[in-house]
């Protein structure tokens, strides 16, 4: 079977095949599907953080003309019990966090539904809530595993003994706030029942998994449920699985006997769609005076909800980044009366590498070694904890090539000495990494006699360019021009593919597309190369191929460089330059890849300087729940930003030779910026985001 593809579509900067649809407004998103007889839903959310709903008076709401139903735990149809308690909407009067769903109003128009929701009176029996993540809390516990199935703690050697005798010790605690995914398109569901069959137009990263979750909840055969999600306006993990709103829409549509549309508001997204847990991370590094690491200890405390556990794998990158004989990593959780944290772009690696890469910078200063040189000195020959061979590891190339392109040579390490008027200038570096996951996937391809092809896989293009790169992969596999290929995604009736998550979409779906195309090419050869009038189909399932992959350490790497300016009078921080150099296998499409990289780096910049969800202790919710208060970067904040990649060939990944690129570029950015802020000012900020008050306060 061919493992190298040589024809020209892969590697070309093909513009997005759905770009024209999107910029002309013709790409139809979940809430935009036009369904006759559609009704609208407005949510009521708990106004206490812990306790019980004791009464719901919907009399006034039901009197309004156009109101069809007010559904709550008092009258909702029963759902089958499922693992994710978040999906058991309206099944119980218990309130586990402020903002949890209490009721839904369904009406002929959105305006009526919202007005009526304001007329529903809910009475609660509140109990004192506990919402503050703190290191001395008696309820801190050790989860059985961390997301998705990593060991909670690991230990090699004797880290404490090594720290005790190390020449240089860095022992610092780093703090990251809760942050919310906030994709541009809010979560939206439009549910339509037809007899016993349920179709939901949905904004999801995983239509197949969502279909299965709904089938389980409503006790339907999976074949009776269809999730349609052709275009998705971002997700960043928050649309990686079914969220409560899809259950509400389906349940409400069943009650009123008409289609129901429910699009969350931005504010509702701050309690119902997950977020990145806040973390407290203690990093201890012990090193020889020449910077050789002898011990690495990474202890993480994070929060989860009482309704369901999410344990982020914050310290897993520390297990494989650098060589050290003695190492310990731990994760501890505290279950609070808060909304449930979940996946957000590079869950684990992103906050974990902020702490590790900040500590490395502190160690470089303590050892008087260039921070790039320090990282190179601690480059491991094999994966440190497992001893596995690397499928490929080009961190050093990223650091060296990136440094050359950024202009790192002759950098004076002295902090706080480069001044331009009231502005201090500095530069910083940090490493990036992300695992190269791959999942089995199915795919099919259909050839028509006119020379066109339809490729089908239940993947999702969440703005990444997946539809475009799969077009390129199919084009080369079929030896056809990209414009003869139509790629169908985002429909649970298509051949099953994994969620668009873990940066494994292209690698997983793409491999199945290659295999399906190879099967089609073989069939065609048997037919003498002539496509019959009815067309011809082929399909593939890569489950066995993935299971048989050799055991190797597969990871992507990168290095990020930041230049910052800090105003000494006002504490304002500007980032005039941000550059990322990545080693991520083969790049299918330079244009969409660069977009992924600079998008992730922008989100990393945002993490460094802006984003924080402020928990209100008195009320127990996230207070700054809109875009006026929750800051993401404006165009004025993102100045010279660019990314490039080293030429990495790795044929032990998948038929394309790719590593995932959706998440790595948010990993390390915050540390690069924080390290540059230190270089500029001499002030080490160990608590994100780096706002003006933390520099002049």
């Amino acid at each position, binding site marked *: 079977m061919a493992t190298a593809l040589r024809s020209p579509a892969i590697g070309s900067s093909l513009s997005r095949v759905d770009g024209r649809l999107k910029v002309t407004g013709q790409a139809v998103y979940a809430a935009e599907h036009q369904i006759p007889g559609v009704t609208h839903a407005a949510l009521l959310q708990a*106004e206490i953080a812990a306790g019980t709903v004791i009464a719901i008076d919907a009399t006034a709401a039901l009197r309004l003309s156009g109101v069809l139903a007010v559904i709550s735990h008092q009258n909702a149809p029963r759902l089958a019990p499922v693992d994710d308690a978040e999906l058991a909407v309206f099944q119980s009067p218990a309130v586990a966090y402020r903002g949890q769903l209490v009721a839904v109003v369904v009406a002929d128009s959105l*305006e009526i539904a*919202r*007005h009526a929701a*304001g007329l529903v009176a809910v009475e609660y029996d509140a109990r004192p809530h506990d919402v503050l993540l703190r290191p001395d809390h008696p309820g801190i516990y050790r989860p059985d595993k961390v997301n998705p199935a990593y060991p909670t703690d690991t230990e090699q050697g004797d880290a404490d003994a090594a720290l005790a005798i190390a020449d240089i010790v860095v022992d610092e605690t780093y703090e990251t706030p809760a942050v919310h995914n906030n994709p541009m398109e809010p979560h939206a569901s439009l549910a339509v029942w037809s007899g016993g069959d349920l179709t939901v137009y949905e904004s999801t990263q995983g239509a197949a998994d969502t279909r299965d979750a709904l089938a389980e909840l409503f006790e339907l055969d999976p074949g009776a449920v269809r999730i349609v999600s052709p275009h998705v306006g971002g997700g960043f993990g928050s649309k990686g699985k079914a969220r409560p709103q899809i259950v509400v829409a389906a349940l409400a549509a069943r009650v009123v006997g008409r289609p129901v549309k429910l699009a969350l508001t931005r504010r509702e997204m701050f309690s119902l769609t997950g977020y990145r847990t806040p973390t407290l991370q203690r990093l201890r590094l012990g090193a020889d005076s020449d910077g050789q690491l002898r011990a690495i200890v990474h202890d993480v405390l994070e929060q989860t909800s009482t309704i369901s556990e999410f344990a982020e794998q914050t310290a897993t990158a520390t297990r494989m980044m650098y060589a050290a004989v003695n190492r310990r990593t731990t994760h501890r959780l505290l279950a609070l009366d808060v909304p449930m944290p979940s996946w957000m772009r590079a869950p684990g690696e992103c906050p974990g590498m902020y702490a590790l890469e900040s500590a490395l910078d502190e160690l470089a200063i303590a050892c008087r070694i260039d921070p790039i040189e320090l990282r190179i000195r601690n480059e491991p020959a094999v994966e440190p904890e497992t001893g596995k061979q690397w499928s490929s590891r080009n961190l050093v190339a990223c650091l060296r090539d990136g440094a050359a392109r950024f202009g790192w040579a002759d950098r004076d390490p002295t902090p706080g000495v480069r001044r331009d008027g*009231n502005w201090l200038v500095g530069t910083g570096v940090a490493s990036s990494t992300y695992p190269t996951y791959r999942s089995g996937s199915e795919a099919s391809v259909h050839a028509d006699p006119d020379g066109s092809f339809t490729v089908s896989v239940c993947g999702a293009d969440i703005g990444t360019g997946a539809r475009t790169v799969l077009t390129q992969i199919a084009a080369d596999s079929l030896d056809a021009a990209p414009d003869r290929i139509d790629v169908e995604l985002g429909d649970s009736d298509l051949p099953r593919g994994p969620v668009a998550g873990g940066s494994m979409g292209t690698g997983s779906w793409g491999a199945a597309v290659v295999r399906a195309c190879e099967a089609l090419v073989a069939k065609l050869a048997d037919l003498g190369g002539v496509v019959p009038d009815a067309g011809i189909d082929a399909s593939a399932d890569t489950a066995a191929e993935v299971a048989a992959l050799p055991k190797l350490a597969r990871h992507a790497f990168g290095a990020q460089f930041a230049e910052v300016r800090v105003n000494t*009078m*006002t*504490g*304002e921080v*500007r980032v005039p330059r941000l550059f990322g150099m990545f080693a991520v296998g083969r790049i299918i499409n330079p244009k969409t890849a660069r977009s992924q990289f600079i998008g992730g780096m922008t989100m990393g910049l945002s993490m460094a*300087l*802006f984003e924080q969800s*402020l928990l*209100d*202790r*008195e*009320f127990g919710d996230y*207070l*700054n729940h*809109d875009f*006026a*208060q929750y*800051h993401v*970067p*404006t*165009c*004025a*904040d993102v100045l010279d930003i660019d990314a490039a990649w080293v030429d990495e060939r790795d044929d032990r990944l998948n038929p394309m030779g790719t590593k995932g690129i959706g998440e790595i570029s948010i990993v390390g950015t915050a540390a690069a910026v924080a390290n540059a802020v230190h270089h500029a000012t001499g002030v080490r900020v160990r608590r994100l985001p780096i*706002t*003006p*008050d933390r520099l*002049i*306060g």
Partner: protein
Amino acid sequence: MKPFAYERPVTAADAVAALAAGGSTARYLGGGTNLVDLMKLGVDQPDHLVDVSRLSRATIDETHDGGLLIGGGVLNSQLAADPIVRARYPVLARALLSGASGQLRNQATVAGNLLQRTRCSYFQDISKPCNKRRPGSGCPARDGHHRELAILGHSASCLATHPSDMAVAMTVLDARIRLLGTDGPREIPLAELYRLPGDQPDRETQLDPGDLITAIELPPLTAAHSDYRKVRDRASFAFALVSVAALLDVADGHVRESRIAFGGIAPIPWRARRAERVLRGAPATPESFARAAAAELDLARPLPDNAFKVTLAANLLVETLVDLAQR
């Protein structure tokens, strides 16, 4: 959102009459960039909207004495781009352009800008108490989040800040407000428009019910350099942590006149009269500027999470005045 009546009168007099007829929950609607948000959030629930965004006099005219008369319906973007404003009142143009976004400035009116409501998180969330929104219900900000809130002029009942940039600049320009009320037209200094919260934070201005801001008058400006500096949590499209509007007239190395106002730190655009008094006749040096800042901020009563604003306001004033003195 609650249903409401909507009408669009042609003249200011008709608008005033329509509002009076609309009852106590009637509101004027300008660009709607704040009021419509508040209606969606349930913070304001008018039964009746009187649209004044298309009344006839949305123009910017020179007055006989060399000042400017700005119609209440003039758009923020229109005012910021006006050649006379840019040439003679740069502090105002800079303040306008530092507010909101291009899209919002294209929609927002100058009268509406003056009357926009605080962006305090608690005020904007009807599931929580707020003395401004629901008098007597309490103020959770004191023990809760108040990093963005006031250090000057606040009270036990309210920590809210006034969000406008434009109003801070107009404060140092000694602007006057032309009003039309049920008793006819009148004129007040902008400095008298706003009330401190005291124990009635729901009463934000000295306007009578039904008063319509028809125009804003800017007196002519004597020879002085002026600027607006705003510090916020990102480079654009955010409310001020602290802003400064300043005019400085220096002769022979000494301050002949200064006019200073702060934004983002008080319930009203905060005219820094104490600082101005310290500067009168003083050498135009960083030391004088720092003394002036200290004199004004001596009044500050910050809370734990916004104490940084005292330092920030002082630094920003000094930086701005040093820059103006060098021009």
